[in-house]
């Protein structure tokens, strides 16, 4: 605060008193007026001197001090102002004084009004601290707008030249929008005053297109001078400047075709004279923000990526619509996997992956520039299509004598740019083209030259080419060829160690040294090498014909690697000590020749011929050395083939020959043969021709100087099967207790394995019974005989029953299984002695019994009655008995009143018919049995003798007697 002392040099004089017109006589009012009057008198005394000295500065060089003039002093009143600043200075002036900035410290200032009202001098102590620094309001030099980017550009001068030393300045800028001056931006901006007038710039991008509403800008400043100790204050605001778009008559939507980052906010407005009804982005309606006039805006927040044709924003009015397209996307990603290589050392191809899609297409798509820093050359890439994830590529022409390239790939779109760099020695990044025009040329039957075309300028580097050699039915072979690169792109390589007359397939690929990448394989080139003479004679064997007069010579076709060409014919000759006999040429498909020879020793030689020449002769002796000690052995396949072994024979000098044939074939039998070195003692015979269940004969021959000797003869199967037929058998002899059976051998073709035995089953049985169907079920009544002696051809079956039918079954078996069965029914003969005995004994017994019975019956007829009692049962029998009893007593039957048949129950009372009682000797027996009688039969008799038998016999006898008596009774 300013410390001001006021000295009154003369007593205060009462000025003109105000005349108070009292309208009221109230006492309190008078007192109040009096009090006010006294206070006014005191103040008016003060007011008669200059007071309230205030000093401000706007440039730190001049202090502008002013004071309040004493009351009564009119305009134009003069003052004498004196102050000390090293020296005493007085100035005569009217109102305020502009002092040069005083040195730090207190300074006394006296202000003496130079007028007639009195002699009041004011004294002030002035210090820099009491001075306010208030800069002048800045002046906006220029306010411009870039409507396309909605950017305001502000330009002003800091007028730094008026300030004595460097100071910091804070500028405050405000942006107001619309006619009602809504503050939309208040920002501070720091600069430094450097003693010179400097024009400053400030730019601001509006969130709303500048066309949408009028924008105002004002600026003020605050100088923060550290050396100034006084009070610092903001300047006044500069006069506002505004930016507005002068619309034409047409309605327009802003911004137009704006590209912006995905996720950002944007305000779109419609400048129109018509009432906007709705606004939509895409298909989404947005609330309207009303601006000046009928202009409206919409705010879009966090915008998502646009489709390829952009995002449409449409404002609809009564009968029209207006719109704009917004393109929301991303700035280009850093090009990824940038790789530069060359195919031919003439052109560099750089490929890269664009990375994240930008969602901007067409004219807003990312453009790429490939810049090479050493040469300063560049190439541009512009892709109009929607970018995909596929690699992009650019071709850069190589420069002479430049091997190192420093590439920078710059990607740019309206939202930004990015780049990727690559330093590459291009001679180390050669990826050759695919070799073309592969040609093959003969050198010999085992060597060729291979030529190909490899486009490129490889004169300064080495090439490594790989040749793949493929042979039919053989693994492929790779040969590497290193060669110096040449300018004319034609390359040549020789390939040796090939086989004559062989179809080869060649293909080539190349790389450079140092290795970067192989080229693709060239197309395959097939080539047949030329023929050479056959390297070996054919594998030969001979057989004597069945009549022993002709020698049949067999040979095998030469394998392709030994034939060395197409075999056209064979020459066969036989030579003995005396003569040499040649047959005419035998054309190729024929591999056998027959020569009529005597039993002398001959050497047969066979020569194969192709277009180039003849093979070395293949020789074989005609003589066969006999071997008396020969056994036929058996062999079955073990593992892959039939294993044949033999003992080492030092006499065998050449080799062993194993020949084999199907045993069922006629002589000379030969399927194939195999030669084994003389030091071998075993071999495995394998052949695709072998079939299971077929018997093969194997013959092992040892080769000696003078001929072949059969060492072993073996029969074998690759797999044994069960016989397909049952042995035929017949019954040779039959007796009452035995059968002699004889059977035949099964033919080899049907046996299908080595016979291991027979199974013979027999049992009692008639034809057409099915008992034998379950022969193997282990039934005890079936008897089985296993005949393991395969030489046995008969079998006697003993202990049979005479005149009995027997079911016989025979089947053979091998290791391969059981063959089918053959069955027969045989009835044994009758035993005659036994038959006679069987007849005579019962007859004799019957006679004896008859005689004895007759005698006994005659002697004691009561027995008969008792026996009959025992034999009869039931009422019928009893009736008969009654009659018999009557008959026996010689009494007539008791008569009843009714008609009575002989079979009806007699209705005679017991007491009246004592004959109805059992005889005394039977009474105990009868009594014992009565309890067991059925109801209604009480008092009757139960007889153990069967009715049928007794009835037949007794009734016959009894009836005869009864009827004869009845007849006699009736007659009497």
């Amino acid at each position: 605060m300013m410390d001001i002392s006021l000295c009154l040099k003369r007593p205060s004089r009462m000025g003109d008193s105000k005349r108070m017109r009292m309208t009221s006589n109230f006492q309190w009012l008078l007192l109040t007026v009096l009090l006010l009057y006294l206070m006014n008198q005191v103040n008016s005394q003060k007011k008669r001197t200059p007071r309230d000295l205030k000093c401000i500065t706007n440039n730190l060089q001049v202090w502008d001090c002013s004071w309040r003039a004493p009351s009564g002093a009119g305009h134009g009143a003069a003052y004498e102002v004196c102050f000390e600043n090293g020296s005493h200075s007085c100035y005569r002036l009217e109102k305020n004084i502009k002092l040069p900035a005083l040195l730090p410290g207190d300074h006394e200032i006296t202000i003496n009004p130079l007028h007639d009202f009195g002699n009041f001098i004011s004294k002030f102590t002035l210090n820099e601290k009491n001075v306010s620094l208030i800069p002048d309001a800045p002046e906006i030099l220029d306010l411009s707008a870039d409507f396309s980017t909605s950017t305001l550009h502000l330009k002003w001068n800091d007028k730094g030249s008026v300030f004595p030393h460097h100071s910091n300045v804070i500028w405050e800028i405000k942006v107001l929008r619309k006619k009602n001056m809504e503050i939309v931006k208040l920002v501070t901006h720091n600069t430094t005053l450097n003693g010179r007038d400097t024009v400053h710039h400030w730019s601001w991008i509006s969130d709303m297109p500048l066309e949408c509403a009028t924008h105002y800008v004002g600026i003020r400043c605050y100088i923060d001078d550290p050396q100034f100790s006084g009070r610092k204050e903001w300047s006044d605001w500069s006069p506002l400047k505004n930016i507005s778009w002068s619309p034409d008559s047409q309605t327009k939507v802003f911004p137009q075709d704006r590209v912006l980052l995905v996720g950002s906010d944007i305000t779109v407005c419609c400048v129109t004279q018509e009432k906007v009804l709705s606004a939509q982005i895409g298909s989404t309606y947005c609330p309207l923000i009303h601006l000046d006039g009928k202009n409206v805006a919409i705010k879009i927040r966090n915008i998502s990526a646009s489709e390829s044709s952009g995002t449409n924003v449409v404002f609809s009015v009564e009968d029209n619509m207006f719109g704009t397209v917004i393109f929301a996307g991303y700035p280009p990603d850093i090009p990824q996997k940038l790789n530069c290589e060359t195919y031919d050392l003439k052109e560099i191809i750089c490929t890269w992956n664009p990375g994240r899609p930008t969602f901007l297409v067409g004219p807003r798509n990312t453009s790429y520039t490939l810049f090479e820093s050493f040469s300063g050359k560049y190439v541009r890439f512009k892709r109009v299509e929607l970018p995909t994830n596929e690699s992009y590529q650019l071709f850069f022409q190589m420069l002479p004598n430049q091997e190192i390239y420093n590439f920078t790939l710059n990607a740019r779109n309206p939202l930004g740019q990015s780049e990727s760099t690559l330093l590459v020695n291009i001679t180390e990044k050669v990826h050759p083209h695919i070799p073309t025009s592969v040609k093959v040329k003969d050198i010999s039957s085992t060597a060729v030259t291979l030529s190909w075309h490899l486009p490129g300028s490889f004169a300064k580097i080495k090439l490594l080419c790989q040749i793949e050699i493929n042979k039919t039915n053989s693994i492929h072979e790779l040969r590497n060829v290193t060669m110096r690169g040449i300018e004319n792109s034609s390359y040549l390589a020789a390939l040796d160690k090939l086989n004559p007359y062989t179809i080869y397939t060649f293909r080539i690929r190349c790389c450079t040294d140092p290795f970067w990448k192989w080229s693709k394989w060239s197309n395959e080139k097939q080539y047949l090498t030329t023929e050479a003479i056959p390297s070996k004679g054919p594998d030969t064997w001979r057989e004597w014909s069945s009549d022993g007069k002709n020698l049949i010579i067999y040979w095998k076709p030469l394998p392709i690697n030994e034939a060395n060409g197409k075999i056209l014919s064979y020459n066969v000759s036989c030579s003995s000590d005396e003569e040499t006999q040649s047959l005419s040429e035998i054309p190729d498909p024929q591999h056998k020749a027959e020569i009529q020879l005597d039993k002398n020793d001959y050497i047969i030689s066979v020569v194969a011929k192709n277009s180039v020449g003849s093979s070395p002769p293949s020789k074989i002796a005609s003589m066969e050395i006999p071997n008396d000690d020969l056994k036929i052995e058996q062999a079955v396949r073990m593992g892959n083939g039939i294993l044949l072994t033999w003992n080492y024979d030092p006499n065998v000098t050449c080799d062993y020959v194993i020949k084999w044939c199907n045993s069922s074939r006629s002589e000379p039998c030969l399927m194939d043969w195999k030669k084994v070195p003389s030091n071998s003692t075993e071999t495995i015979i394998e052949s695709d021709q072998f079939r299971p269940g077929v018997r093969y004969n194997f013959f092992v021959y040892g080769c000696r100087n003078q001929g072949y000797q059969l060492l072993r003869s073996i029969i074998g199967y690759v797999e044994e099967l069960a016989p397909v037929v049952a042995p035929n058998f017949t019954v040779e002899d039959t007796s009452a207790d035995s059968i002699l059976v004889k059977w035949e051998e099964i033919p080899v073709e049907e046996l299908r394995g080595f016979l291991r035995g027979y199974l013979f089953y027999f049992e009692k049985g008639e034809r057409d019974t099915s008992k034998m169907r379950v022969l193997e079920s282990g039934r005890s009544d079936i008897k089985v005989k296993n005949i393991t002696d395969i030489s046995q051809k008969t079998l006697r079956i003993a202990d049979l029953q005479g005149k009995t039918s027997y079911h016989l079954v025979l089947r053979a078996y091998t290791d391969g299984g059981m063959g089918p069965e053959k069955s027969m029914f045989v009835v044994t003969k009758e035993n005659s002695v036994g038959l006679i005995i069987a007849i005579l004994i019962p007859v004799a017994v019957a006679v004896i019994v008859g005689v004895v019975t007759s005698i006994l019956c005659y002697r004691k007829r009561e027995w008969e009655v008792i026996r009959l009692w025992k034999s009869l049962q039931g009422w019928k029998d009893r009736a008969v008995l009654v009659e018999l009893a009557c008959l026996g007593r010689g009494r007539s039957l008791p008569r009843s009143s009714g008609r009575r048949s002989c079979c009806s129950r007699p209705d005679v009372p017991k007491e009246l018919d004592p004959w109805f009682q059992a005889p005394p000797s039977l009474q105990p027996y009868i009594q014992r049995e009565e309890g067991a009688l059925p109801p209604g039969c009480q008092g009757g008799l139960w007889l153990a003798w069967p009715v049928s038998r007794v009835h037949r016999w007794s009734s016959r006898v009894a009836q005869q007697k009864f009827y004869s008596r009845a007849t006699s009774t009736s007659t009497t």
Partner: protein
Amino acid sequence: MDLRAGDSWGMLACLCAVLWHLPAVPALNRTGDPGPGPSIQKTYDLTRYLEHQLRSLAGTYLNYLGPPFNEPDFNPPRLGAETLPRATVNLEVWRSLNDRLRLTQNYEAYSHLLCYLRGLNRQAATAELRRSLAHFCTSLQGLLGSIAGVMAALGYPLPQPLPGTEPTWTPGPAHSDFLQKMDDFWLLKELQTWLWRSAKDFNRLKKKMQPPAAAVTLHLEAHGF
């Protein structure tokens, strides 16, 4: 194969049918010039085919333009599309047109529309869209040639383009993307209307040329021009 009596009758009937239709076989019917009838029919068929093709193309293209252009009830004002030939015409005016005028208007319209379509093709951002547009342009070129053929058959001269009236495609900053989309929309719409109108025109012409008596009359008319 065994032929029964019924088969023989069938074959005879078939033979008779073939003989009956033999005069209708064009290669055998060499009685005279077939006249413009076939080419009118061909043009009519091509128009119907293009209508079908445009339905597919418009669906794809409007989806490419994005909403609201692909919304069914979207009906923007015809702002910048004033240079497009209008297909809509007053019914009385259309009835009063003679054949030559009809064909001339068709020919001129499709010449302009084809030119605009080619511009559209250049602007399209996706390869698939460009292929579709190129295919349609080829078809439209065929229709244009077909109309020219009909006109030639009827003895009408082809309209000569006036110098300076060649339609131009004016993309660039002066033409905003939104207005461009509006134009594209209207181009497709006008094309659709023109094809519809052409189908009517050629159908009318076809009916006029159909009866043989009419062909003679037409011949005389042609001489009259």
